[in-house]
């Protein structure tokens, strides 16, 4: 029974399951919209994000669709800029932490022994520090800002990927095709990069989507706490910052609801795409 199912072309399964996922489809569309918005932000946005263009805290109007903030900047323009920052942080952090994680995971898994023990010890250590706390400390020591946020998040987000890659390498190392490669005298580097790594890509990719989602959330949280992107630069997190003030919270919903909703949609889209990827890489998933 199981064997019979697996015989079905995997490729078809991938696309089939992927597109069947209506939410994933909607998410892809949504993400494309966000990316386009971010890329062409300065063309789309009605005003410059940091310029005062209206009266203080004006409610939504024809000139300012989402109103203006406490010092008269256009909320929509700042929102568009914030999306750009969020995506920038998300992508950069994912790339940095993936590279670190993949290298550490590959080295640990392939060489094993003491190297493995040392690297995994390090991984455990980084994982033992409560995540936000570590970032806060780092943000307190280094000057907060876009670059430091990216670097800080990038350097604390890798342990998950490292563990994942190490696990894949360890299990792939035991497969017969890697043994056959060894018997055929293929070079070690070839086995590691051309045989093992491509087979570990799928779980890495899935995990990377969640890193991206988390890093966007973390940037927003840090900026919200005032330890992330510093004003006047707009970020979805620091736009929400003012809502700790009771007047803004109760009477100026346009100042905090839109950035909040945008963060949710952005992260949700990424999460759904990750879930769809997981489904599509696991052909058995739908028979459970």
């Amino acid at each position, binding site marked *: 029974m199981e064997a019979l199912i697996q015989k079905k072309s995997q490729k078809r399964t991938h696309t089939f399951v992927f597109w069947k996922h209506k939410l994933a489809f909607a998410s892809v569309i949504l993400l494309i919209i966000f990316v386009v918005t971010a890329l062409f932000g300065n063309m789309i946005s009605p005003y410059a994000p940091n310029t005062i263009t209206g009266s203080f805290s004006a409610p939504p109007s024809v000139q300012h669709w989402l109103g203006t903030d406490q010092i008269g900047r256009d909320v929509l323009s700042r929102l568009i800029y914030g999306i750009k920052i969020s995506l920038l942080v998300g992508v950069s952090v994912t790339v940095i932490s993936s590279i670190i994680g993949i290298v550490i995971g590959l080295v640990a898994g392939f060489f094993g022994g003491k190297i493995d023990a040392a690297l995994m*010890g390090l991984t455990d250590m980084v994982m033992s*520090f*409560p995540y936000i706390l570590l970032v806060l400390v780092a*943000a307190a020591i280094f000057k907060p800002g876009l670059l430091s946020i990216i670097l800080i998040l990038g350097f604390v987000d890798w342990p998950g990927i490292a563990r994942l890659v190490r696990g894949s390498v360890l299990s792939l190392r035991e497969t017969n095709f890697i043994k056959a490669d060894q018997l055929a005298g293929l070079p070690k580097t070839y086995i590691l990069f051309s045989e093992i790594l491509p087979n570990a890509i799928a779980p890495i990719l899935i995990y990377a989507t969640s890193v991206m989602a988390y890093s966007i959330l973390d940037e*927003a949280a840090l900026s*919200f706490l005032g330890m992330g992107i510093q004003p006047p630069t707009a970020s979805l997190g620091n736009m929400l910052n003012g809502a700790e003030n009771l007047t803004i*919270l*109760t009477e100026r919903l346009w100042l905090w609801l839109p950035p*909040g909703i945008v963060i949710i949609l952005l992260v*949700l889209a990424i999460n759904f795409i990750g879930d769809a990827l997981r489904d599509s890489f696991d052909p058995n998933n739908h028979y459970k």
Partner: protein
Amino acid sequence: MRKYVLKKILFAIPILIGITIIDYLFMSYAGNPLQMIHGPKVSQAAVHAKEIEYGLNKPFYIQYLVWLNQILHGNFGYSYKSFQPVSDLIASHVGPTLLLMGSALFISIALSIPVAIYSATHQYSKGDYTIVTASFVGTSIPSFFSALVVIYLFTVKLGWLPSSGMSTLGENTQFGDVFRHLLLPVIVLVAATMGSNVRYIRSAMLEILQKDYLLNARAKGIGRFLVINKHALKNALIPIITVIGMQIPLLFGGTVIIEQIFSWPGLGLLTMTAVLNNDYPVIMGVCLLTAVVVLITNLLTDILYAAVDPTITFK
């Protein structure tokens, strides 16, 4: 079993040392450890004298050992801001945090398990689909945003619940009052953690539902209830323990934000204040403490695994 525990403890020691080294490095990067012990308002000459006394002219590793010795004696230094011993500050703030985290963790897990089991046993049904989608929505909402929303709804609009502090000012601390103050932050933390809990337990459960031993249990005719709640659930305890273990460091982080928004007088608030004031001794003290707590949690999780899974002692 005892040997297994011993082994796990032995393996935890180097990690613990590593954590203190990282902590120490951060500390030295942030400032002179002497200042941290005595505060910045000490004269240059006195500092110099102390430097020799504490061996700060000695090699780095000796300095580290001196510092470690202090830590082991409970001396985490003094706050820059209030000049109180860091250990006292931590001691007075740890209770509220434990209360908040504990309630959130308990409720989150207690709700997640039945929801996840329902979802897994009704896979691809509408209910399952709704639960999974909701869990994704849950994990995608930043907790500070949901905090703002619940404050807006329950405090501002409905006026049902307080949104600040741990008790009403000027009144004697009473259980009911603390409970009312606790509700909103706990709701937010539960909402933030439940999504990933449900998905993790659900996928673990799905895997277990595929196992031959469940088919065999069904073939025994012992009834669906026992098959799920005895055979499947006992095996699912391991992933559930894992989830609890994973939640603790995450909750520590989550409480920083939540305590800040709800002015909950716990470690998170202490940390945030310290961060904003560059009060490094306090930050480092909290960091070290939480890292140790996380490590101990990991240790406990491992030990619990062995208690739940009879095959584990042989690994």
